[in-house]
């Protein structure tokens, strides 16, 4: 109904969110430019090269879907570890449900506060990495986010941060439409872990800009909640300096539509980056990982490891690119995307791309899609393991290569337990 009021869908996009609290001049300039960028590129459409497999209509719609809130009895993901907890409810920071914004080895504030102050480093990152990530492919939801997000955290890690920063996204309203924008700078030699957990909103749009200085380390682990019909459009924009480390892992179960964009620019030599994900979908489920890694420095390694388990008509999408620029010699790029289809109704669409302009590189990529191996299943069953349990073992085994990308063993075990829990709830 709302669409008719606007000349075009892009204006509808910009109009559906309230304006954030006004920030300093620099921040408002950045937001204004983002608004212009959004209008310039227009809303995402099926004709866009990277929206062919995933229909953006529900992300573009003026109306927010009514999404039932899943009440969970279980302990939240990552609850077992010591952490600095920051809670957002329907995309809004909740001081009551959060720890004090302070910690060893880091400076941290809300996006609202940071954008109204003159934080020199933040102005070099906020909207900047997002803008860099707009070429060669437009990402209008990211520009929209920069233009209108009023919520998020701004973190500068200056040393070894003693505990991970855990961002918990809770829901109370069934029709929340949230924009969250995090700005992160990991200084030279610093080490920061970010945990994200929860569906966050009926429709969630997040941007995380991560600037890792030479010799910095960044670890990111995310579980996107279990609410069945939620929509999510997430972005990570990372710039990696020399000898830095970057790891990001995402667990996705359920959700009507999830699109996770990750854009990584490796600008300094001897750097290692890994992006991985495991997703499990049953029925009305579309999960899309769209990854762009650019190597613009020598002797760097990047890994993309994505595994999807799909059933009852669920769809998995993987679009992954490794771009090796001239001069990025000795690049070691690895990319694998695999789907395990538990029935004939589900499907997996993959678009792996390598674009290499340097001559001394080793890049490999592979994409497969198949059913549970009957021989393995029979072997397990012949030892007395019932079919459903054997199949679940195969599912967890299939996902294991992605889980192994998680460095922290305790967190990896937590993820494994969640996967198994999902498999058990959805067995047969």
């Amino acid at each position, binding site marked *: 109904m709302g669409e008719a009021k606007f000349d075009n869908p892009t204006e509808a996009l910009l109009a559906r969110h309230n304006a954030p609290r006004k920030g300093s001049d620099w921040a408002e300039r950045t937001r204004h430019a983002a608004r212009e960028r959004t209008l310039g590129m227009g809303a995402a459409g099926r004709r866009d090269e990277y929206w062919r497999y995933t229909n953006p209509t529900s992300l573009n719609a003026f109306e927010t879907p009514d999404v039932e809130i899943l009440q969970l009895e279980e302990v939240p993901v990552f609850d077992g570890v010591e952490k600095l907890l920051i809670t957002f409810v329907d995309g809004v920071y909740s001081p009551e449900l959060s720890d004090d914004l302070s910690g060893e080895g880091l400076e941290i504030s809300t996006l609202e506060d940071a954008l109204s102050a003159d934080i020199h480093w933040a102005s070099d990152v906020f909207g900047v990495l997002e803008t860099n990530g707009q070429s060669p492919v437009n990402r209008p939801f990211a520009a929209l986010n920069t233009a209108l997000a009023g919520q998020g955290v701004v973190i500068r890690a200056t040393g070894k941060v003693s505990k991970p920063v855990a961002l918990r996204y809770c829901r109370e309203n069934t029709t929340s439409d949230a924009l969250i924008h995090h700005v992160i700078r990991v200084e030279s030699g610093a080490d920061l872990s970010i945990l994200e957990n929860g569906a966050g909103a009926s429709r969630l749009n997040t941007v995380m800009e991560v600037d890792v200085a030479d010799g910095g380390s960044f670890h990111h682990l995310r579980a996107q909640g279990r609410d069945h019909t939620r929509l999510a459009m997430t972005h990570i924009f990372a710039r990696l300096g020399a000898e830095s480390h970057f790891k990001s892992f995402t667990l996705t179960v359920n959700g009507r539509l999830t699109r996770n964009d990750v854009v990584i620019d490796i600008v300094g030599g001897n750097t290692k980056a890994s992006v991985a994900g495991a997703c499990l979908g049953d029925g009305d489920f579309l999960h899309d990982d769209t990854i762009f890694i650019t190597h613009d420095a020598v002797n760097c390694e990047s890994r993309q490891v994505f595994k999807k388990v799909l059933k009852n008509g669920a769809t998995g999408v993987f679009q992954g690119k490794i771009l090796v620029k001239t001069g990025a010699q000795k690049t070691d790029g690895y990319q694998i995307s695999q789907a395990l289809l538990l029935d004939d109704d589900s499907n997996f669409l993959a678009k792996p791309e390598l674009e290499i302009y340097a001559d001394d590189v080793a890049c490999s990529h592979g994409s497969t899609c198949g059913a549970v191996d*009957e021989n*393995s299943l*029979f*072997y*397990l069953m*012949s030892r*007395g393991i019932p079919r459903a349990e054997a199949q679940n*073992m195969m599912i*967890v085994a299939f996902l294991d*290569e992605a889980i192994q990308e998680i460095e922290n063993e305790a967190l990896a075990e937590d993820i494994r337990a969640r996967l198994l829990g999902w498999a058990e709830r959805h067995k047969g």
Partner: protein
Amino acid sequence: MFEIKNLKASLADEDKQILKGMNLSIGAGEVHAIMGPNGSGKSTMSYVAAGKGGYVVDEGEVLLNGANLLDMEPDERAAAGLFLAFQYPVEIPGVGNMTFLRTAVNAQRKMRGEEELNAAQFLKIVREKAKSLKIDADMLRRPVNVGFSGGEKKRNEILQMAMLEPKMCILDETDSGLDVDAMKLVAEGVNALRDGERSFLVITHYQRLLDHIKPDFVHIMADGKIIKTGGPELALEVENNGYADLLNEVA
């Protein structure tokens, strides 16, 4: 104890019968051996008994203590007491050998209404049994059969058998591809499980395994049937003269 009665089975995808009226009866505590040319249906028999997909049973029964295994799922057959040591054990990346063993042992106990073993109890038993089969901690930690040598895979089969304590064990060419020492280990593993109650069906091409695991009866299988049954001397005859004479005898 274990009986195969007039078993006829075909490939599900092709109209081709492999087992053509097989009969076999094994009493409690007995060891039987089956020998026979390649392609005679020995593995098919063991797969059909264990419940592998891809085969259609046209006729007959496979009974374990009177219960027809053919009516059961593969896991139920295992819980009923059947164990098949595979000719080609399957590699399962991502599933730890130890997790696999423990899940299997406890799944069977659960199905039989017995109490499950906790981690400590299980570990104690598995270490002991693994040691006698020269299976080290590393092999237990690794994914099931992944990167195992031929001999390691076969020893791993025997370890599973020892852990699961089945009533009826079918060993499908467990000796193939093993050197003499590995074969002795496997044979010792099997002999350690002989207790007067447990029965064995050993499929092999070689007399030398039967020097270590002494059979009570030897059967010759050809073209989907048992064509001759005798004592241990029959294995020696095969070893010396091959199958040609035996096949001609029936023809």
